[in-house]
């Protein structure tokens, strides 16, 4: 199906902290729609009843066309933007980064869960019990101006348009 578009699968990662499938950005869990059910092959009958005109039933893996790359969310296009927003995530000490689809997550909590699984760590978060902060990590992001900020300071909806990439650093190194 090629035209030069970047494939949406994340790069393979040579590391012992091999994450489970559910955390993978290229195989996103869209809790909002039926794509999970369809992938489990459970809804052949429902697919007949699908009303194709309802946007909430948009499948993540159909139609079989890789998305046209666009300049993040700051392009003033139609209100239905690209259904993916991939950013790179680096963990301190590991040379090769991963890619993550931010739009596949409902909010910060969801994002932290995915990252915890992907990098096999615990990312500090205000609501968490900080038992052993020495082994925890902190999540930071680079914004449009190139500044590195702590993730979580602004509402999720404001975070999305400004984030360029993510970095996970050790809590004790800040």
């Amino acid at each position, binding site marked *: 199906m090629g035209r*030069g578009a970047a494939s949406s*699968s994340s790069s393979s990662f040579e590391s012992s902290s091999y994450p*489970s*499938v559910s955390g993978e950005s*290229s195989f996103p869990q869209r809790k909002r729609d039926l794509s999970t059910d369809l992938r489990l092959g459970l809804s052949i009958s429902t*697919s007949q009843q699908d009303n194709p005109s309802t946007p909430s039933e948009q499948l993540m893996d*159909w139609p079989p066309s890789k998305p046209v790359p666009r300049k993040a969310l700051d392009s003033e296009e139609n209100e239905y933007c690209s259904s993916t927003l991939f950013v790179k995530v680096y963990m301190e000490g590991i*040379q090769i*980064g991963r890619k993550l689809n931010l739009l596949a997550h409902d909010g910060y909590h969801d994002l932290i869960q995915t990252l915890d699984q992907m990098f096999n760590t615990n990312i500090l978060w205000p609501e968490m019990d900080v038992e052993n902060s020495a082994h925890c990590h902190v999540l930071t992001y680079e914004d449009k101006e190139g500044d590195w900020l702590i993730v979580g300071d602004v509402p999720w909806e404001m975070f999305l348009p400004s984030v360029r990439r993510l970095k996970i650093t050790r809590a004790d190194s800040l």
Partner: protein
Amino acid sequence: MILAQTRTYTTGSGPGPGPSSSSVLEYLAPCPDQVLENVLENVLWFLTSRKDRNAASLVCRSWYRVEALTRSDLFIGNCYAVSPKRATSRFTRIRSVTLKGRPRFADFNLMPPNWGAHLAPWVSAMALTYPWLEKVHLKRMSVTDDDLALLAESFSGFKELVLVCCDGFGTSGLAIVASRCRQLKVLDLIESEVSDDDVDWISYFPDTGTCLESLIFDCVECPIDFDALERLVANSPSLKKLRLNRHVSMGQLHRLMVQAPRLTHLGTGSFSPSEDVAQGEQGPDYVSAFAACKSIVCLSGFREIIPDYLPAINPVCANLTSLNFSYANVSAEHLKPIISNCHKLQIFWVLDSICDEGLQAVAATCKELRELRVFPFEAREDIEGPVSEVGLQAVSEGCRKLESILYFCQRMTNAAVVAMSKNCPDLVVFRLCIMGRHRPDHVTGEPMDEGFGAIVMNCKKLTRLAVSGLLTDRAFAYIGKYGKIVRTLSVAFAGDSDMGLKYVLEGCPRLQKLEIRDSPFGDAALLSGLHHYYNMRFLWMSACNLSNQGCQQIAQALPRLVVEVIKHEDNLDMDENVDTLYMYRSLEGPRDDVPRFVSIL
């Protein structure tokens, strides 16, 4: 078998010394078999077609041996069908290797990542047995930086690296290839995912000059150092093909074009000026730059395009044979003045933003068109859609030499598809994707059976078909009846019952690759293909009605088939439903790099 001959000489009764008679091995004439082998070896060097070679190798042992010695291009359509050891033992003089890994549906999120298709065991084996390896062409393989390093170190004469839809490596791997492979002519990265290791890989090419003929890196999402690129282009006098990524602005493109006017294939970066060119200021003369490149026959890129700049390419339009606008969000109005000059165009990839009107313009001018791909700008199901049967009909009437079409649309009619089947008899590839699942002919309300039926009936050269829209078993009956040379078939959200799949498995003797998703085919249908599966490269079925039991039956009946059941997410218990079945013939049995979510029956 006589290995040697002896000749008996009797000397005459003349003067002089010497035995009166002796048997000596004075002249060791080659035995007839050896002569045959020599002749064969000389002749078989000229045999390039894979099919012919495979046939020749089956004649007898000696032909098998000689063919193996004279084969220089190794093609492996499924990296798990044969082990690296087996392949490298049989073919010892290989110069070029093509390897394909993951199945195509993996590109569309239908398979969890890290399923397999690792290059590592292959490159290790080849490093030992093919010191003179020159070309490696990979598709859908997982390649690591270590693999690239081993490749760069092991093959001193390495010339060509082509990575299509690959992942697992980064700019550090590219840097190693750039610096070590001194004979490198081709480095083509196509639709691959390259991670950003913050390594300026372009600067690792030697400063003293390169043999580069082709450098394609439009899929590399990381920024590059433009000065290094400019130096590289200046140092590469043989460079003919250059495809830039979107981090190269128009101004930078201009500078490169001035350095390399002999380019034949150009992929522009972003087709918009960088921010430091003020509005209204006289920018570089793009028209002259394009006019100076008299050899350009293929243009692509145009990411982040500002359509006002499009007329700059006018000087090259008359010579273009290939134009890729599939990243360019342009309207019919923008397209028309450009396309009206492209009389020689044979390959055209475009976004549906040009609408039916744009396609009509294509049909009016591009009489030599062989391949058309129309991609969706917005891949959704519920919108009106800018292209339809009108565009398809127009193309079929204007572009009679069409051989390959990929067409995404929201609505279609049987009439237009039937028209194409009659107007374009040379069609080899017909892929129609009606994005609304189960959508019927929007004028008659009928299923799309008749349209696809006409395609298989009338297009006698058709080998690849992808179907969509509302389809009953009847469509499959047509395919089974008329699609006698179909090799690749793609099915999604189609069919009524097991009969659909049965028609195809029983009717299409040349079927090699079958990929099916979300269709109501069950175990009985699967079993009806037992006679054929050893002749296929693979079968993929996801979200169908298969059970573990049915798949087990196949696995037991066909021991040389690897039957993989792929589970999704956390549903790793073995329940009766099979999410995804991927099965393929193999000489090696179950692979040893199976991830957790795959079980091999």
